[in-house]
């Protein structure tokens, strides 16, 4: 159980929350917190491959973005990269706590370490995400195996 009360399970040595959907491209999770409102955060593999997060910055609320466009940026080890939105929508909230203390993302990625909230413009895009407890477990285990095989993760 995370600090936010989410059911967390372990898959291939990593914690995974099964009560939400996942964007495989960016290793971001998407949790619907209202009829058209999604909360987004980094999953455990996204955290692991980022390294120690030094900086986070997000677009201001009210900004509209298409799926694939950056809702923010992340810096670790002097390496800056975009955080690509898994959904089209409008930024309605950003997590000031992780901007002030990026280590919160590493401590509680599925709870207090969330990144942004969006009003979802195209609910159909949700179908492209990985969802369902069994499907998530299988997908995540395969991702870990692939990352280990490619040397992204230590054996």
């Amino acid at each position, binding site marked *: 159980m995370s600090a936010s009360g989410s059911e967390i399970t372990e898959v291939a040595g990593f914690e995974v929350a099964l009560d939400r959907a996942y964007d495989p491209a960016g290793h971001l999770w998407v949790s619907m917190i209202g009829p058209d409102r999604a909360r987004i955060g980094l999953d455990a593999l996204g955290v*692991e*491959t*980022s*390294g*120690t*997060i*030094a*900086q986070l*910055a*997000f677009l*201001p609320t009210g900004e509209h973005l298409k799926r694939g466009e950056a809702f923010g*940026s992340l*810096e*670790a*080890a*002097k*390496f*800056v*990269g*975009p955080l690509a939105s898994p959904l089209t929508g409008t930024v309605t909230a950003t997590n*000031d706590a992780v*901007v*002030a*203390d*990026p*280590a919160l993302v590493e401590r509680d990625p599925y709870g207090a370490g969330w990144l942004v909230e969006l009003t979802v413009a195209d609910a159909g895009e949700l179908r492209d995400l990985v969802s369902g407890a069994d499907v998530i477990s299988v997908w995540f285990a395969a991702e870990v195996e692939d*990352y280990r095989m*490619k*040397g*992204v*993760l230590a054996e």
Partner: protein
Amino acid sequence: MPELRVVDFGRVSALRSQTLWHALAYGVSRGGPPTLSFMRPSRPYVGLGYHRRLEEADIEACREAGLPVFRRMVGGGVVYLDEHQQFFQIILPVGSVPRSRGRALRQLLSPAVTAFRAVGVAAEMDDDVEIVVGEAKICGHGAAQIDDAVVVVGNLIERFDHAAAARVLALPDEVRAEVARLMERFVAATPADSAAFRSAAVAAYGEALGLEPAAGGPAAYERERLRELDDRFRSEAWLRGPRRPDPHCAQVKVRAGVFVVCAEHERSRAVASVVGGRIERARVSDPELNGAAAAVEERLAGVALAEVDDVLERFGAPGRRLAAALAKARLVG
């Protein structure tokens, strides 16, 4: 064998020493060949890491010294750049780079280590992915994903003006002096022949990446992006950067694992130099220390960060205030 485009721009303006390689990154993102580029600025200037607050640079001091300030898209802090630094950039499609940032950096800086060694510099990559000789960093690096390209930048430092590098930082004088002291120790020039370094880097990156080096230049699309980047990098909005929170304290990273922190809490103030996870030197003040400041400073010297709270607890309320001040530092990045 696929091509490694090699572009040697030689001496360029301060602005172009940033915008040229950003333009190449957009070109590689759009399908251009993997690229290794070189350049050196024709004059000194100040560079800001993408996420850094503009206020971290002493803008007034920069203006007085005639130093332009440009924000780059790669990470890191406020840095002083000049004509005695030979810069290189390796730019690859994002799909050919490991997803782990640490592994990507190690992979893309290793050929630079080979190049340093080829010109007689006993360079090594340490556990923090810094290129070092002994305990001193000899190559300033940064990296970014720019659209669908990854760029890693670094430099051969032929000569380094430590005083100028410290002067452009917006810090109280005593903190700046401490930063300068640590820079002298932990940032070193390696005055190797830059042409030989460039040749060695071309060979090392070609070999490591399995690419055939071939001299080239910017494509038409990259020249178009260059003009747009020139305008962007000169704009106030870009210089201001992304929204950042107000800092809890002032801190400067000299190299990985080496920081100077200046933090206050209520009536307490602490300036601490941190080297390898331990306080090397501290200056503290608190009105209730009653002449015990020197004792606190002496007791803190050599203490591991994890033990600082315990040590300061012995000094009562002022000790706890000093601990609260130092707890505001985030010693990463």
